[in-house]
């Protein structure tokens, strides 16, 4: 085996081990997604196809729900944008890491999910490996896990449709998990208070189908309006400490 082959084998192996936590999450949530898709009356191929093209878990769940219940394409596109607007901030944080990439850059950008972003920004690149190659293989493995889960779940749901009522709660549980992760990282009350206040307002004032959008916009307004005020209180508190 040539040295180049050996290096490549090492790269695959290292990236595989790095991707194991994502594999566990993606395969199980992917299976859930496949089951939810078939249970909602959509054709089974919706799950693996969206895993290849959209490749954004929360949006796929939302899209499946909206398309199954007859929502319009413009509304779907707009809510997908709202849901994925956070990706714009991931990109900003890896601009530097991905700047060296050439051929694989388009794929690295396409496959920048929450979990891949988490790995890329928190993992050390193994010694002797080209960082861009490592990130590329890692990103591709993650999508392979997601695709496998979605495919498996869809086939399973088609073969033996069991009572999956309530299984789509896994998505709410996933958001709860991600919220806890946020609480562990962002230890300030403003974003949570803004979001709760905006949600109550949206619940009182608008129809359920417009809830997400209105709550998000009101939250951003609240954050921006109180930005200077928040800054002042924290500056004071830091001074005291």
């Amino acid at each position, binding site marked *: 085996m040539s040295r180049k082959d050996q290096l490549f084998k090492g790269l695959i192996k290292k990236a595989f081990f790095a991707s194991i936590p994502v594999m566990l999450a993606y395969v199980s949530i992917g299976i859930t997604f496949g089951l939810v898709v078939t249970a909602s009356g959509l054709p089974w191929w919706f799950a693996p196809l969206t895993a290849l093209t959209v490749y954004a878990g929360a949006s796929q769940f939302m899209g499946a729900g909206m398309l199954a219940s007859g929502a319009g394409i413009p509304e779907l596109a707009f809510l997908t944008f709202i849901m994925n607007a956070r990706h*714009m901030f991931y990109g900003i944080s890896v601009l530097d890491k991905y700047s060296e990439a050439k051929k694989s850059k388009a794929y690295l950008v396409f496959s920048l999910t929450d979990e891949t972003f988490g790995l890329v920004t928190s993992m050390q690149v193994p010694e002797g490996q080209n960082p861009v190659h490592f990130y590329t293989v890692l990103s591709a493995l993650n999508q392979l896990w997601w695709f496998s889960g979605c495919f498996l779940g869809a086939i399973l749901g088609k073969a033996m449709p069991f009572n999956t009522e309530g299984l789509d709660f896994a998505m709410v549980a996933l958001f709860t998990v991600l919220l806890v992760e946020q609480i562990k990282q*962002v230890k300030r009350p403003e974003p949570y208070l803004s*979001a709760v206040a905006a949600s109550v307002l949206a619940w009182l004032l608008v129809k359920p189908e417009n809830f*997400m959008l209105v709550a998000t916009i009101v939250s951003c307004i609240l954050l921006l309006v109180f930005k200077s005020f928040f800054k002042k209180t924290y500056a004071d508190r830091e001074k005291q400490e």
Partner: protein
Amino acid sequence: MSRLLFGILAMTIVTVFTRAIPFIVFSKRDPPKLLIFLEAYLPPVLMTILVLSTFKSFKIDEAYSQIPALAGIIISGALHFWRRNVLLSIAGGTVLFMLLSRLL
């Protein structure tokens, strides 16, 4: 059928757009301060709203119907604070939700 394919196409284009735009816009210059401010706070805001959107159709006179979802969220959250194991947290909340929504 074609409606589904158009839906998938729209979601794909929008998602790629949200992932690509920083690389297009900020390849040469630094992001503005306002964006950096929102960058820090938008993820917790969005996660809070996503969790609360479970109750978007909530009506006060049918409050009991929300018990399974509320219990599921509390258990998932508590499990995650305790063990920080993604699979355990998701499975715990979902199983409880499915059980309660069949029993109640």
